[in-house]
């Protein structure tokens, strides 16, 4: 599905954020991207969501190169992607329902389809009562769940989540992990960045689970769990 070959990301010509990264992420696979702060997890996510250009190497999605910044291909790729941002990135002046509906509106779903899909996902995350609330009036944990709901509402082929459980208590974190595992079991490729290694122990056998460990911008471990 998505593959990186000898990817380098360099800032200011001599600061290497990522060095020689190579891996493939397949459908129905749940990958944990681990590593200490500054290891390059967020940079890798930025490259995967094409927020930044790779300095050298190859990034392919379904065998199509993604580093040429072709707008048509880029938007088509992003529509197949579900992203959970570390800082949630909810739009402050629209309500929770509309926030979750953004990916569907971009893809021109009908009002009926949007209503059905958004209510279904809000119910799944226990957020129905907040449908008409604004992001400023909900807690950090609730915002986190809204961000996850938005990432999965359009049934993406690939999900990348940067510290998706950072603001959740253990119970809610495990519940979110279970949702990601369910998605992976349904054929979605999921990549979760986390620094909480304990979290990895809570995975079940529902899907293939793998750990990629980064240190100083390099992959030092890539193994199944």
């Amino acid at each position: 599905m998505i593959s990186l070959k000898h990817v380098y990301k360099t800032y200011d010509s001599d600061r290497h954020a990522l060095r020689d990264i190579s891996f493939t992420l397949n459908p129905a696979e749940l990958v944990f991207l681990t590593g200490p702060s500054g290891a390059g997890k967020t940079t890798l996510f930025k490259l995967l969501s094409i927020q930044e250009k790779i300095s050298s190497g190859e990034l392919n999605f379904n065998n199509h190169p993604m580093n040429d910044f072709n707008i048509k291909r880029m938007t088509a790729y992003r529509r197949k992607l579900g992203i959970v941002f570390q800082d949630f990135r909810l739009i402050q002046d629209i309500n929770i329902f509309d926030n979750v509906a953004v990916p569907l509106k971009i893809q021109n779903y009908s009002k009926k389809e949007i209503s059905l899909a958004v209510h279904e996902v809000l119910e799944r995350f226990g957020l129905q009562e907040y449908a008409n609330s604004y992001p400023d009036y909900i807690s950090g944990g609730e915002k986190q769940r809204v961000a996850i709901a938005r990432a999965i509402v359009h049934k993406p082929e690939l999900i990348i989540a940067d510290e998706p459980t950072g603001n959740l208590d253990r119970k809610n974190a495990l519940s979110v992990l279970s949702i990601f595992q369910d998605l992976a079991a349904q054929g979605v490729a999921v990549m979760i960045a986390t620094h909480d290694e304990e979290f990895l122990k809570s995975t079940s056998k529902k899907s293939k689970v793998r750990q990629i460990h980064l240190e100083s911008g390099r992959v030092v471990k890539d193994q199944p769990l």
Partner: protein
Amino acid sequence: MKTIYMIFMSLCVFILSSVLYIKQNTNIIFGDASDLYTVNISVEKSQTPEQVESILKQVQDVHPTHIKKVTLISSQELIADVEKVLPAYSSGLFENQELEQILNPIIEVQLAPEASSNDIITKIKSITGISSVTFSADWVEKFKSFFLVANIILETIFILFFTILSFLIAVLIRNYLISSKDSISLHTLLGATPSQAFIKPYSQIMLLTFISYIIGIFFTFVLAATIKQKVSANIDFAFINSRMSFLSATNILIIALGLFLNLAISYGLSHRYINKEYYKHD
């Protein structure tokens, strides 16, 4: 941001439309006040219709380029005017015959604003068969240069305002759009095309600009009504009052077109910025 934008934009529209309104009315009152440049020639009663015709021809020949129009108003036409204006008095105070004796035929000569009225009047006075010559706009003549300068100043002010405000409006629109960059950035990351990412903030700015335009024009209307009221309170300005008019449709359209042009330019600039920022990563 929305409130600041609306206040500033309404103010810009108000300033521009007010300057246009003042310029338009100055033009109407002084700039091309051709009917004020009228010389009235009273023809002697003793002149036969043929002689009057001859006087008319001679007047026309005094300065064919600076004399715009020559009209003969007979005594009968003048009497009809008096009867129309003063019906109650004309029947009781004067007999038609008495009026005919009082009112001489008049030749009305309309001069071009650039004409030298003194030269023309001197030449007219030398024509035989004329009892008196009056020029109704001596004061206009005296202040002609002043009006000309005032007009140039107003035009310059308008062009300056238009340029400065156009620039400010364009910058304001661009900044407003860029202030929505969080929303735009999110939309782009979720797969929106540049146009999709842009449509909401841009339609918002279009709506705000339209509302500001209406507010600005409304306040100009209030200003115009206030000026007209003040002018009409003073009888000395009666002739000004009758000539004053609100912004012409053309001027209202000029401002609307200016705003539209600004919106289009800002759209182009911001679209390029967003494209570069979120899609090209140059």
